[in-house]
């Protein structure tokens, strides 16, 4: 398994598709425990990512991902903009000068992304945020070098569903305290789409 520039493009396109298809669902999740803009922002941000990057000639995945990071930062807004922007920037840095992303690079890149999200959001595991999806996915790569794409997808999905029972202590949802229990965290859902798209592009690589 190794990802090349085209596979990364495929990952971004699939992520964008999922954001567009699930725009209303993300809005609904955010209406329950937030301010309802997550679906709007993610759909706008990922559409911009595709618009910005599709006709550009990149030398490496790292170059492409740097542009992705800057676009997400400047087009998504809210908390998700800086968080995903930071994550993709860390990925870009971790994969600098690599034309073929090996499974070990994915592990290191996702770990760097997760660390970036934790630092930017001053948050940690178990607080009902996107971290609760990133953390188990990173762990999966640590535990098994030959992790199957379907396992990545399943793990991210289960982790997203598990946020339902958590009480939010970080992010907008934390204002709702106990009322946040029983709802899937919108950020964990958008992260699930990103990992689901990653799994599909790994499968096709």
């Amino acid at each position, binding site marked *: 398994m190794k990802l090349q520039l085209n596979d990364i493009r495929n990952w971004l396109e699939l992520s964008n598709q999922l954001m567009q298809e699930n725009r209303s669902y993300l*809005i609904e999740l955010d*209406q329950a425990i*937030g*301010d*309802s*803009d997550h*679906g*709007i*922002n993610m759909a*706008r941000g990922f559409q911009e990512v595709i618009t910005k990057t599709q006709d550009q000639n990149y030398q490496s995945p790292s170059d492409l991902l740097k542009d992705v990071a800057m676009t997400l*930062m*400047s*087009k*998504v*807004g*809210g*908390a*998700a*903009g*800086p*968080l995903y922007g930071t994550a993709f920037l860390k990925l870009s840095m971790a994969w600098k000068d690599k034309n073929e992303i090996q499974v070990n690079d994915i592990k290191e890149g996702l770990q760097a992304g997760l660390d970036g999200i934790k630092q*930017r*959001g001053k948050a940690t595991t178990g607080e009902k945020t996107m971290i609760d999806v990133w953390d188990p996915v990173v762990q999966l790569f640590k535990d098994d070098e030959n992790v199957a794409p379907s396992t990545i997808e399943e793990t991210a999905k289960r982790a997203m569903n598990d946020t339902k029972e958590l009480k939010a202590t*970080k*992010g*907008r949802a*934390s*204002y*709702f305290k106990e*009322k946040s229990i029983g709802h899937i965290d919108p950020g964990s859902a958008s992260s699930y789409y990103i990992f689901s798209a990653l799994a599909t592009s790994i499968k096709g690589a």
Partner: protein
Amino acid sequence: MKKIINNPNDVVSDMVSGMIQAFPEELEQIDGTMVIKRKELSSNKVGLVSGGGSGHEPAHAGYVGKGMLDAAVAGEVFTSPTPDQILEAIKAVDTGHGVLLIVKNYTGDVMNFDMASELAESEGIKVEQVIVNDDVAVEDSDFTTGRRGIAGTVFVHKIAGAMAETGATLNEVKEVAEKTINQVRSMGMALTPCTVPAAGKPSFQLEENEMEIGIGIHGEAGIERKPIASAEDIANELTQKVFDDLGLQSGDEVAVMINGLGATPEMELFILQKHVNHLLENKRLSVFRTYVGEFMTSLEMTGCSVTLLKLDDQLKSLLEAASEATAFRV
């Protein structure tokens, strides 16, 4: 959804264009951004930048003007502006004396303003931030990290702006802004939700006979749902919480802000004001000045918030200093 708009995606840029046209002498837009700045900057003073999601009009651009903010950054509806735009605002208003960012305590705002100040500092601009967290609805007073920033922010704009106009240093302006933040508290309620244009439907549902206590200014639901009560009861509930949290004593002097959330008639705001005033009189507080109107709205939400600012001589004189901001003329 019934709204006077063209395309939900264009509401912010259309609004900014209109606003600039309405105040051609006072305001201008920085090209390629949603940053609105004073046309004529005062030289030799600390720059003041605020901003946040759109949908809170007249916040934030209405507070741009001599004596208040130098620039405001408009994000998408209820969404923080992005670091690149905030950076443009900082660069545009820095006269070499540094820039103070006035940020409301919402996760997205804090992160985006943080990143912008890191970027500005890497370009050699001195930047400081204050985080307004006046909303007593969401956390206990000793849990200040969790409270939201709402209408009390307008007092911070006013007082920091007046201080900056005196030629004070960045640290002095920051200090008075923080003093204001420590002494201001608010609480809000809603009768009906609002509809974000891009979402197309209301942000929460309320029955005809229900009200929502402790709402924020982003259309988010509040902390408690109750049967609708009289104006007197609503005024008492909101004011009492603010009063207690602020630890006010008989003899203290305050400024009062009765803020409409976008769709409440002034009639109702004045009715509320009457009861708030009555309650403050009973507690032997002296009301220095009362502001009634729309200062920090939540699109077309029906409802209100009550803000109290505990005053001292310094805050009183800064509150009374001249302001040419289009939505806050003194």
